[in-house]
């Protein structure tokens, strides 16, 4: 990207001696606007619709189906409605912090898109510390949530904010530790570097490269649920306990921003796991054309991420919420030790087989397939059992 801007400047597109910093700043502004409005927001909006439909299906409801085909434009209607609503700031609230908080949350959700590896070419900035940047920036959300909880001057909001801070900071540790095995294997923090170290076949993904990575991926997935305030860890906004948690006093657009960030964060968490463990954008070499390959890679990446997003919706539709002490003990008594073991185990593994064990991939893949088959069998059994006469013929 920088090379391209440099070449444009050298070709005199912006006058003879343009101020280099200004041109860069202008490009960054334009690009962030494109990412923000063109990718992140529509994505979060569509995920909100998909989630409501999937959730409705799980709960045997219909869900939004009026605005647009199958209700697919519902998110636009909701967005317009929220933006047009009155922006209420409580008298007792700390107005400046209250107004700022949603933007901080949104910042934590928009900035990771800069290193989102959609395909081999489609990445805004392939930072050499990509993963580090990714985890650091997503943790910014906690500042916004805590700010919102404090500034609202509402006790329920405060409890929600504090819960969120405790939760996100705690789960950062197992999540960070679960990134480590992959970094140990590849020796790079760059998103593209990690993806290039894998191949498109599932048994060459890092998920199946060794047993420790397999466990680490599961730990990372659950920690990502916790960091994104998703069920079963949706304590900060537990509606039955804390009204709406940190968002209790918010209304209109500011309220919307919190939820956009939540839905967008589902994609971000999925992208992180896909990049690290599921082979990222790697796709079979079907064509020699770079454009076709990039489209294939884009598809491959998005399908994997959306599958993870779907599983998080599925989990949300199934599980109840844990209590705060149970959540903390799960993190500190189970995930942190397991993450440490994964890290040490992978280090030993890499020391023994520096180029990876060729057999382990196939064995672990077979194991993964066996688990998946068992799981699908169980799901099918329950699906079959739930088809009862009464639902098929409600008038008997």
């Amino acid at each position, binding site marked *: 990207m920088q090379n391209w801007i440099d070449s444009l400047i050298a070709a005199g597109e912006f006058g003879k001696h343009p101020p280099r910093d200004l041109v860069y700043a202008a490009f960054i502004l334009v690009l962030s606007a494109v990412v923000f409005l063109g990718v992140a927001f529509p994505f979060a909006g569509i995920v909100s619709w998909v989630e409501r439909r999937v959730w409705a299906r799980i*709960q045997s409801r219909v869900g939004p189906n009026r605005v647009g085909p199958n209700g697919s434009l519902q998110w636009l209607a909701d967005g317009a409605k929220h933006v047009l609503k009155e922006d209420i700031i409580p008298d007792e609230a700390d107005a400046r912090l209250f107004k700022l908080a949603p933007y901080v949350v949104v910042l934590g959700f928009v900035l990771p898109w800069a290193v989102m590896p959609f395909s081999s070419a489609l990445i805004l900035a392939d930072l050499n510390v990509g993963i580090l940047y990714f985890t650091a920036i997503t943790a910014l959300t906690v500042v916004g949530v805590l700010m919102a909880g404090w500034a609202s001057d509402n006790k*329920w909001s405060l409890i929600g904010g504090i819960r969120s801070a405790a939760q996100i900071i705690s789960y950062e540790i197992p999540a960070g530790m679960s990134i480590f095995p992959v970094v140990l294997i590849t020796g790079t923090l760059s998103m593209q570097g990690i993806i290039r170290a894998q191949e498109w076949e599932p048994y060459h993904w890092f998920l199946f490269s060794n047993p420790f990575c397999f466990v680490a991926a599961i730990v990372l997935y659950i920690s990502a649920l916790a960091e994104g305030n998703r069920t079963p860890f949706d304590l900060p906004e537990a509606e039955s306990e*804390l009204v709406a948690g940190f968002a209790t006093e918010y209304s209109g657009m500011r309220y919307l921003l919190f939820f956009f960030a939540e839905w967008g964060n589902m994609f971000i968490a999925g992208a992180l796991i896909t990049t690290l463990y599921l082979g990222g954008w790697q796709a079979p070499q079907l064509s020699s054309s770079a454009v076709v390959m990039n489209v294939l890679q884009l598809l491959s990446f998005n399908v994997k991420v959306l599958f993870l997003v779907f599983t998080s919706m599925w989990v949300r539709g*199934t599980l*109840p919420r844990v209590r705060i002490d149970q959540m903390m003990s799960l993190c500190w008594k189970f995930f942190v030790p397991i993450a440490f073991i994964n890290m040490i185990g992978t280090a030993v593994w890499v020391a023994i087989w520096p180029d990876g064990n060729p057999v382990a991939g196939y064995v672990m893949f077979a194991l993964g397939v066996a688990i998946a088959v068992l799981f699908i069998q169980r799901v099918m059994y329950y699906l079959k059992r739930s088809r009862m*006469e009464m639902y098929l013929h409600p008038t008997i």
Partner: protein
Amino acid sequence: MSDATEPALRTEEMTLNMGPQHPSTHGVLRFVIRADGEVMREAVPDVGYLHRSIEKIAEKVGYHGFMPYTDRVDYVCAMFTNQGWGMACEKLGGIEVPRRGEYCRVISTEFNRIASHLLTVGLMGMDIGAMTPFLHALREREMINDLIEELCGARLTFNYMRIGGVAWDLPPGWREKALAYLDHLDPILAEYNALFSYNKICIQRLANVAPISAEEAINYNLVGPNLRACGVKWDVRKDMPYSAYSDFEFDVPIGHGEWGTLGDSMDRYMMRIYEMKESAKILRQALTRMPDGPVLAKVVRNFRPPAGECQVRVESARGDQGWYVVSDGSGYPWRVHVRTGSFAAMGIIQKLSRGLMIADLVVLIASLDVIAPEIDR
């Protein structure tokens, strides 16, 4: 510099106001919580937000006219309040209800018990953060509502019973539909258990939360499923049979503390699941053995029971419901009092709440099956 005898960081208790408008208080309830962070020192229930003077209204509208008002005492299981009022008046006036009328009462109340327990069980799911069980439970409850709607035309406030029996006989074809629903219910309960009750997180959330000992439960006057969950085998239907209950074979399930302590929230929750199965058992027997005959005894329009007082007890979905009626020989009762299970359950919350977490209070309220209109009447 801070003094060595004082803690470096000053902390203070937080007073939280939970309700009357709060998503998980099951109506208009209010709790004043003194909390130390997430842990509660005490939660003091504040009742009276839903008081509608229903008992006083009885003194103004007469015996027949009060029947629709009894629906509003507990609108989640209105059949029981209907029956309680009907039984009290029949006892005062010395009226014999026809056998088929008693069977109709048993059938409608037991269906209502299943509906009420489905709602309780679903609300428990919602209160610990799982929306799906709630909506699945409501879906099954809708089918019962359909059945009852066919029976009496209403889905929530039934006004089905009359002094001396019930208003209408079962419509044609209703019996088959009801039996089909009962066949449908058993697998549903199994599915519900698989989905929610035996879920690891659910058991973790409910087991060992706010256990009540049998002695404590009796001292605090708990009734119904809440009492039986503590291991006390007391059911008015079995121990003081009324209506047609002496005709039927059924068990009275009690708590055993399989998941944690005896009488904890999980026991109280599971009690509802067990009772739905027992209700289905009673319903099957009642529907197959239904005698013929009228459903409503002849009662004069200007019903004037002789002066006196009476007390009847009905085993409602929320436990032993007592109706105390004093007649002075006129067309209007002199005094009516309803003793409800939810009001008794509210009394023990303050004691149990000490040392619980805020999230547990929600579980406690849901497990005691407190319904706001029944507390205040």
